[in-house]
């Protein structure tokens, strides 16, 4: 069926479009962006009045934990992709630390089958780089790719041995797979649960020094340069890491990087009062790090904004700080947080933000979407940027409630998400 989005503020950085126009969608694809869609208005097509709304390519999240299989009490494909479309995301890349992990073709196939049956946001599995997410022993990457994995990663289990990383990157490179890495030298973070610094010192908690992240960012960038393998640095949190990635890019390393809204919206002081909803890995850092992250986004050092959506059940977070699991949910707050912190403060243009949350993520892993060019999939998000709303975790579609942003007033709300020409979420319009 044909759908016409009429009089939308169309923002598509992939084509340099930033104007009021009509968008015509037909048979699951974008047909045209036109000033006047009257000629396209055939009988029976749905016309959506978008006056005052912003229309963008659907957001793409490079870093999500759907928790299925194995941890369905925290989240599953249904609830996770529902949270995604509510957040304006038409596609999510899911991490392999499930149980069993995404290290076998059958597990990848099973996951994709589930996602298809659910039929909400597109799901792109990221496979484990090593068998069983163990420190050594490569996973069968060729078979995993064939089964549908779009990249490989060590997320949550950072490779400590440079040799394993080297072999993993050499092997992935020949298959055209990008390696995504969580950067953490574990010998520097033993028993640590937040950022190392004044706040941890006051709270009497063991801290993770920024250098634990930076050492691995540097090592991994060097290895990317040496092997030629595309490297994507997950959730950058420190100023030093931004500097190292900038240098690596200047050196010609095929490196991309992401950060998450919490790394520019919050500092480690959010942990005061032993707030386990502010406990994540890498940890929240300092204001200087937040400023450097924003600078990195602006100058292109950091390519994308992801969520690292990491759901945990309430009873798991209601523990002693050091014992609670790392991670926060993010799909339903990511756009509004980024818009509120970056665009409405004048630090970034709307077009730049859409580029970081849609176009660049698509480019990083060569995924469909991230553009409204004619013929591309009709993955579309619609936002009401004037809308102010208050974060209420109890209203999340995600099964979990672990957000440090409860009660925050944010600006900018996704009001419609379309995936492949089908409207999967619509609110207040």
């Amino acid at each position, binding site marked *: 069926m044909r759908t016409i989005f009429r009089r939308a503020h169309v923002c598509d950085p992939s084509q340099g479009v930033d104007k009021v126009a009509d968008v015509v969608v037909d048979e699951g694809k974008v047909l045209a962006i036109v000033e006047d869609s009257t000629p396209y208005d055939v009988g029976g097509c749905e016309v959506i009045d978008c006056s005052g709304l912003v229309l963008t390519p659907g957001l793409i999240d490079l870093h999500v934990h759907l928790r299925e299989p194995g941890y369905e009490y925290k989240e599953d494909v249904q609830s996770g992709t529902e949270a995604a479309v509510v957040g304006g995301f038409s596609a999510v890349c899911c991490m392999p630390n499930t149980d069993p992990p995404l290290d076998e073709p059958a597990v990848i196939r099973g996951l994709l089958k589930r996602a298809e049956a659910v039929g909400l946001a597109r799901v792109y599995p990221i496979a484990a780089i090593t068998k069983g997410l163990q420190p050594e022993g490569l996973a069968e990457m060729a078979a995993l790719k064939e089964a549908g994995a779009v990249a490989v990663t060590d997320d949550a289990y950072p490779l400590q041995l440079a040799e394993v990383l080297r072999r993993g990157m050499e092997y992935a490179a020949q298959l055209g797979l990008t390696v995504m890495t969580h950067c953490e030298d574990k010998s520097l973070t033993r028993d640590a649960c937040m950022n*190392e*610094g*004044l706040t*941890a*010192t*006051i*709270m*009497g*908690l*063991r*801290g993770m*020094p920024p250098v634990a992240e930076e050492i691995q960012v540097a090592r991994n960038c060097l290895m990317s340069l040496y092997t030629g393998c595309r490297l994507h640095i997950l959730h950058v949190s420190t100023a030093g890491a931004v500097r190292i990635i900038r240098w690596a890019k200047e050196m010609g390393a095929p490196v991309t990087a992401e950060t998450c809204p919490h790394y520019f919206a919050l500092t480690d002081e959010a942990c005061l*009062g*032993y707030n386990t909803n502010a406990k994540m890995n890498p940890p929240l850092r300092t204001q200087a790090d937040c400023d450097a992250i924003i600078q990195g986004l602006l100058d292109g050092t950091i390519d994308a904004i992801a969520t690292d959506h990491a759901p945990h059940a309430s*009873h798991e977070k*209601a*523990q*002693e*700080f*050091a*014992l609670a699991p790392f991670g926060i949910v993010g799909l339903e707050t990511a756009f509004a947080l980024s818009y509120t912190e970056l665009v409405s403060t004048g630090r970034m243009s709307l077009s730049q933000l859409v580029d970081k949350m849609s176009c660049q993520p698509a480019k990083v892993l060569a995924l469909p979407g991230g553009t409204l060019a004619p013929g591309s999939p009709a993955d579309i998000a619609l936002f009401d940027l004037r809308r102010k709303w208050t974060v209420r975790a109890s209203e999340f579609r995600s099964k979990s409630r672990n957000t440090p942003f409860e009660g925050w007033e944010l600006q900018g709300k996704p009001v419609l998400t379309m995936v492949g020409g089908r409207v999967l979420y619509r609110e207040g319009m």
Partner: protein
Amino acid sequence: MFTDLITLRETEPEDIRLLLDTAQSFKEILDRSVKKVPTLRGRQVVTLFYEASTRTRVSFENAAKIMSADTTSVAAATSSVQKGESLLDTVRNLRAMRIDCLVMRHPQSGSAHLVAQALDIPVVNAGDGMHEHPTQALLDMLTIRQHKGKLEALTVAIVGDIMHSRVARSNLWGLTKMGAKVRFVGPATLLPRDVQRLPVEVYTDLRRGLEGADVVMALRLQQERMERGLLPSLREYSQRWGINARALEVTKPDCIVMHPGPMNRGVEIADDVADGGRSVILEQVTNGVAVRMAVLYHLLGGEAAA
């Protein structure tokens, strides 16, 4: 007025002064032949200890008993914790038995804070991880005040494993709120990150750290720190940072020496100093009972019951 005692960082100076004054007046009860007053009769105080402790637990229990409260002692080693029960479930069950006050010691920083948020009865932090140990700091402050007549403008040097010490953190907040100057002295590997941004002077050199001090407080050195590579050897530590008669030469002539216990004699403190004329270590223990009486008295509404 406070409703729990979790941290001295969040306790007002006037409340600290009130607790010290009350403890001072209660101390007299300890010298009576019949150590019993009816102040907290009928109140139930539970001590929940997830870490081994002799002096703190007995001190709290004696304080409660002197004021006629009933006490129950729960050691985590013999409780449902061993069956995997969470901290919150454990304390909610205790509360369901209609107890009036919970005194808790726990190896995790922030645990007392977590419990206080969940319970509607007074919670006393008897030491949580590396965070705080407020009653220890109060008894230290009471002891100093008894010897010096004041806390204002005194220089207190706290020596040793600052990083892992809840005693150091509570004393820092308590003492500075009462106008004392605090120094942290210890090897760089035992000083926490950004410690110099706290209201404290930081020294790695013992001699400089002790110069002109009115009070020297040695902290217990935990042997397991060496296994994590934080110190080369106990020998080097005791030579460089151990409190002995020679180290005390640079302090004020009337400087007192304190230790929260238990002591590693010959490591962080020399025998002759621990037992010498400047040592007030056993007075600290006595004052501990008075301070804990004062804390329970104010938290359990002793005024109304008295």
